[in-house]
């Protein structure tokens, strides 16, 4: 039964991963990726890691939702329902994908994978908790602080109140002499206006 479920989830993960590159809309691509991650999360549940599996599903749902929203905001294709070509450099990517897949398959088949079935009734969540707060504490705390710094940085960069005034009014620092030129580096001309033209697609 477990084998059947494993094969089904793996097939779903691979198929939806392939569909990410074949659908014609950014929103569909984001959600196909989410389906792929959900399948992988369910495989983790089969591997007796229920917290990791379900937390993966939870986080990927949120992340793909935010990604889909950003796609709709910034693509020149509101709602993502206008058919469009989603991929660049197809031949190179297909070749790279096949090589990577082949390499990974060889690695999996030729390496000596461990076989340690988790005993029935083992308290895996408790063991995970002890691991997080014991041997792996440094890694997770560092990652947590890094994520916090990233969040604060993102909010500071995108907030309207800049350091010397409103950021959409330029937020230039005061001059070195009273009434003089603003101090600091001046941005290049037209620094804020980038039009990304996906021409030729």
């Amino acid at each position: 039964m477990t084998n059947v479920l494993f094969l089904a989830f793996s097939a779903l993960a691979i198929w939806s991963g392939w569909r990410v590159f074949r659908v014609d809309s950014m929103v569909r691509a984001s959600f196909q990726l989410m389906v792929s991650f959900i399948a992988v999360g369910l495989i983790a549940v089969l591997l007796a890691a229920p917290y990791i599996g379900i937390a993966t599903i939870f986080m990927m749902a949120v992340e793909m939702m935010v990604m889909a929203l950003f796609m709709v905001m910034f693509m020149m294709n509101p709602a993502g329902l206008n058919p469009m070509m989603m991929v660049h450099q197809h031949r190179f990517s297909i070749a790279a994908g096949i090589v990577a897949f082949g390499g990974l398959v060889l690695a999996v088949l030729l390496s000596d994978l461990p076989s340690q079935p988790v005993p029935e009734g083992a308290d895996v969540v408790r063991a995970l908790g002890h691991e997080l707060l014991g041997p792996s504490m440094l890694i997770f705390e560092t990652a947590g602080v890094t994520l916090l710094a990233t969040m604060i940085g993102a909010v500071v960069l995108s907030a309207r109140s800049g350091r010397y005034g409103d950021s959409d009014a330029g937020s230039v620092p005061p001059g070195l002499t009273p009434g003089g030129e603003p101090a600091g580096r001046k941005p290049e001309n037209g620094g804020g206006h980038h039009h990304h033209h996906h021409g030729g697609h």
Partner: protein
Amino acid sequence: MIAATLALLLALPLLVWTAAIFDRIGTGRGATVLGPLRSGAALLLRPNTPTEAPDRLNRLLAPGWYLALALVGLSVVPLAPGIVASDLSTGLVLWGACEALTVVVVFLHGWSPNAPLPLIGAYRYVAIGLPAMLLSMFVLIGAALPAQSLSVLAVVEAQRDLWNVVRQPLGLPLFMALGLAITLRGPFDYADGAELAGGTSAEESGPALAMWQFARAAMLVAFSGMAATAFLGGHLGPVLPGPLWLLLKTLAVMAATVAAGRFFARMPPARMLTLLWVVLLPLSFANLALVGVTVLP
């Protein structure tokens, strides 16, 4: 497990009907008891509306997925000691995953008709639904701390001497804010609001609309069951049998949620975002810190 699943599936339509009755009380529309059945039957007889170039699969399936998420969320609620439809050691995390996927499903419901007002409803809902979900996760962690486990069965057992609503008084109100959000009600109804002419449901009619409303009510039932279990002690109680206590507490939370939905006005989204991030989330952190401190020794 099978018995619990069957019991839930049999009880769900009746509880959905009760939720619809609660929705009608106080609106002055009359026909409180049979009204929902009649309106539902009338809706089922109307045709589905096609739109131009929709995403067919998601348009067809979104109400079904919403209902499925409500059922999965309801399945972690224990009906009696040891009787639960899905016996997971991480039931609370599964409930969180259901909330996250609900936001995705409501977005898909608004995105798939390829129309402006539903899409605006979908956008706004995501912006509000994601932080509301964070709120619920912190209060549920506060419910898991005294139980020293993520399993909902253990959370109920830990409330034998003291209910969680007393241990963390802010927990239930904050959780109800999330309940209003995932059931698209009242002050958090940014998806289907009146200022968007029905929002994500604006281009829907007939059986699809009936299914969406049914799923909304089913999600209200699931949320009320979860709130009753995590904060009000679930099936624990003196004289009556466990499932009956659970039912009474679920109905109480349902009535309170519907009333809260009618009591508070819906703010413009920017203001609600400020409220969530500046007021409610710090409150939930403080709530969690308080629980942690009291549970520590």
